[in-house]
């Protein structure tokens, strides 16, 4: 017997209202589709607001040498050559238009003296490439997209909805079901196509710069519907999260601090990046900087709370710092009682971004399930084994748009299916409501505490450094925690009950955690963000493989998907990067690879 539920119908359903979701919705609506956006939070609160550094696009406004090919090269090299090269190609070309488009939607950027968009240097980008406004570019982007969205005819927005299952008709996705957070009522949405734009997943780790929303809902929805999840082992540790006080541990300190000249020091006062990457120093790629800090701490040269010192005070004067990094100034001032214009900040690695995600086709953002699309952080492939700063704000605009266009096309040619399965809806309702039942299950578990233990297991055993042994431990822990979570019960009713919501979120977090651990086990090498203590080097064979996680009945299997290798003309482009080094090219690219960097250093 079904509980009553509300039904909505639309051509394109967009799940998530960060930059990718909003850009997708605008594209779908402009293509003539009735478009429904559902978001877990209020509009404009999505994690996009946290992005501080900027959008990377090779406008060449400051460094005339820059072009999209160099951006392509930097992104591929940063991703350790396991990116989906076609996504990178499309990205580097298209993001330029997306930046100018954003400006025409009313978004503002800081300017050069002659009035063009200003660009700042950033880690592992060959040239000054990040377009920005102070250190609040994410906020600017989300507000601009939000205003565009609400004024685009054909778009409806439902805030504070959580979707828990995709509905299928045969092979094809035909809608979704979920609940309204604010009153606990169930909803069913019939849609011609679905775009997932739910962002990443950091909440299964203890030290994260992610909000509560980052529970991996989108990837779990896709996985349960039969889609592949790719590159799940690649989780980015941002090298500079706040360390102190405890309540803000993990909170992001923008890379723009280093972009503006900030220096990392250990407790001996040494600028230790000299010892790890003397070429790029503090602006080395994120995985390298994060590991360097980790190693300094392990060697006993850490800061009082287990990190390193980041010093901008001795590099610039107070006026400059406050104008270039106003939010950082405010953040440290308000939350840590530290004046960054006078003293160094204490920073350390924090889980920040998920390179992996739903496997998509480059040009259309189509997943392996018909009618289902994915864009932004929830999708995998663009960033390979490590993402460069500034490439995520661009990612959401470029691929959000691609997904919206492709989903609209699919919806138009295939129509909306009228029938949704009452059995599936009843099943979903039953499993949700069980958490509120006083059914005598013993011992009852507190979902928050199960979550804490999951975070501990993942942080300790599937975190910045991993081994077969630690990953196996994590896998066992996930299994045990799953059993405990099945006994999670909470009091209260269905109206905005965060304990109840946490019970359901845990199910997603288990799927994602298991996918991360199984993929990390399969990648028996160190590459980019994946650091295996037991396999310290790169393995050329694995450089030609992406691991995909797939649902197999009730179990999960990992399959190696051969990487589509770059054609020779793309390999040649790599030499445009200042960070190109012919000696590190894998043998399968060596024939096409130029002997030296064209850019010089």
């Amino acid at each position, binding site marked *: 017997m079904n509980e009553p539920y509300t039904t909505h119908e639309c051509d394109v359903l967009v799940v998530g209202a960060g930059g990718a979701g909003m850009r997708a919705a605008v594209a779908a609506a402009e293509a003539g589709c009735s478009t429904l956006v559902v978001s877990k*939070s*209020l*509009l*404009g*609160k999505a994690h996009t*607001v*946290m992005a501080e550094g900027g959008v990377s696009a090779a406008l060449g406004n400051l460094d005339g040498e820059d072009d999209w090919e160099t951006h392509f090269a930097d992104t591929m090299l940063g991703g350790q050559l396991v990116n989906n090269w076609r996504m990178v190609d499309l990205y580097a070309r298209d993001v330029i238009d997306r930046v*100018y488009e954003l*400006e*025409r*939607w*009313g978004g*503002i950027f800081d*300017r050069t*003296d*002659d*009035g*063009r968009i*200003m660009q700042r240097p950033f880690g592992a980008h060959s040239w000054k490439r990040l377009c920005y*406004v*102070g250190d609040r570019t994410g*906020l600017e982007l989300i*507000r601009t997209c939000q*205003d565009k969205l*609400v*004024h685009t005819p054909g778009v409806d927005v439902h*805030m504070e909805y959580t979707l828990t299952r995709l509905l299928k008709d045969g092979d094809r996705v035909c809608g979704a079901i979920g609940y309204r957070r*604010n009153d606990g009522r169930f909803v069913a949405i019939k849609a011609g196509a679905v775009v997932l734009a739910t962002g990443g997943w950091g909440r299964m*780790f203890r*030290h994260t710069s992610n*909000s*509560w*929303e980052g529970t991996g809902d989108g990837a779990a929805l896709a996985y349960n519907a039969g889609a592949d999840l790719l590159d799940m082992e690649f989780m980015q540790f941002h090298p500079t999260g706040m*360390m*102190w*006080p*405890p*309540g803000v541990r993990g*909170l992001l300190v923008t890379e723009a601090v280093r972009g503006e000249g900030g220096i990392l020091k250990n407790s001996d006062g040494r600028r230790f990046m000299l010892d790890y990457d003397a070429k790029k120093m503090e602006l080395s790629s994120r995985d390298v900087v994060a590991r360097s800090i980790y190693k300094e701490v392990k060697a006993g040269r850490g800061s009082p709370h*287990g990190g390193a010192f980041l010093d901008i005070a001795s590099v610039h004067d107070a006026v400059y710092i406050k104008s270039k990094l106003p939010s950082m100034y405010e953040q440290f001032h308000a*939350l840590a009682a530290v004046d960054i214009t006078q003293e160094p900040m204490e920073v350390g690695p924090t889980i920040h971004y998920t390179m992996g995600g739903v496997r998509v086709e480059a040009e259309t953002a189509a997943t392996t399930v018909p009618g289902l699309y994915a864009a932004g952080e929830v999708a995998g492939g663009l960033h390979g084994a490590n993402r460069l700063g500034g490439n995520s704000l661009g990612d959401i605009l470029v691929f959000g748009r691609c997904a919206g266009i492709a989903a609209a096309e699919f919806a138009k040619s295939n129509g909306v299916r009228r029938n949704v399965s009452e059995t599936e809806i009843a099943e979903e309702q039953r499993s949700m409501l069980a958490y509120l039942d006083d059914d005598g299950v013993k011992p009852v578990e*507190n*979902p*928050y*505490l199960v979550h*804490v*233990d999951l*975070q*501990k297991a993942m942080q*300790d055993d599937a975190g910045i450094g991993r081994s077969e042994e630690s990953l196996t431990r994590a896998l066992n822990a996930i299994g045990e925690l799953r059993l405990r979570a099945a006994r999670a019960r*909470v*009091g*209260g009713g269905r*109206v*905005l*009950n*965060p*304990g*109840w919501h*946490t019970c359901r979120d845990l199910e997603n977090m288990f799927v994602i955690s298991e996918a991360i651990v199984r993929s990390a086990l399969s990648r028996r090498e160190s590459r980019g963000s994946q650091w295996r203590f037991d396999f310290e080097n790169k393995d050329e064979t694995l450089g030609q493989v992406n691991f995909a996680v797939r649902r197999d009945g009730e179990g999960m299997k990992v399959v190696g998907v051969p990487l589509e290798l770059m054609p020779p003309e793309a390999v040649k482009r790599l030499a445009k990067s200042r960070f190109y080094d012919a000696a590190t090219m894998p043998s399968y690219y060596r024939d096409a690879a130029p002997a030296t960097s064209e850019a010089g250093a």
Partner: protein
Amino acid sequence: MTEMENPTATSTSDDLDPAQGLTGETLTLHVFKGEPGETGTEQAYEVPGVTGMVVLDAIHYIQRNLDTDLACRWNCKAAKCGSCSAEINGKPALLCKTRVDELPAGPITVRPLKAFPLVKDLVTDVSRNFEVNKEIPPFTPAKDDGKPWRVAQRDISRLREHRMCIECFLCQDVCHVLRDHDHSKRFYGPRFMVRVASLEMHPKDTLDRIDLTRKAGGMGYCNITKCCTEVCPEHIHITDNAIIPLKERYADRHWDPLRWVGRKLKGDGSKQAEGSK
């Protein structure tokens, strides 16, 4: 909520972060609990103090250990998203930006925003704000050749202040027009005066929203008490840099039509000059 390990919880975690910084003090919070139609009560909770903790940390502790269904909105826990607005000791503030050690000793009272209808506990229905935003005509540039724009940094610097708004709606909550009187449907409120100002001062925008802001927007209801400016966590000078310039433009137009026409004729740049303070 990741960071507030709790030593007394029945968690199996054994490696409590040694840097967790328990202060040894116990805090008392009086938190509003209730749903519409009920009377609602202030519930007392005791929470262990931690160095540098903000009120949101205490709420998370309560959710995790004492009352799993206590409702509160939050996202970033970094004062950047504007989700966690509430009234702390009677004053509108962000839960994630209010440090416990900066509040006076004694119990901390936490209640939902008063100007908006209650949903549950600390959560209110702020949908009216989203409706207002829809009523304001969006950014509309002139049709041109599509080449990248040239804009002066000076214009951007001025806009940056308005664009910092995180839509926490604390200013909407504190404004007496929206709060005490039943004028909430007749006045857009300070947040949207900021929004209009940011559009009006954008050098590439071509629309004119001044009359609309006065009529539908109810700008005249604002009597410049500056309460909104005082609570803004982004330190936006809402009154001085948004409301007063808009009021002046309106006054100019209706009391000094010649000056207004003169400004209009100067084209794009005049929009900037008018708004600058």
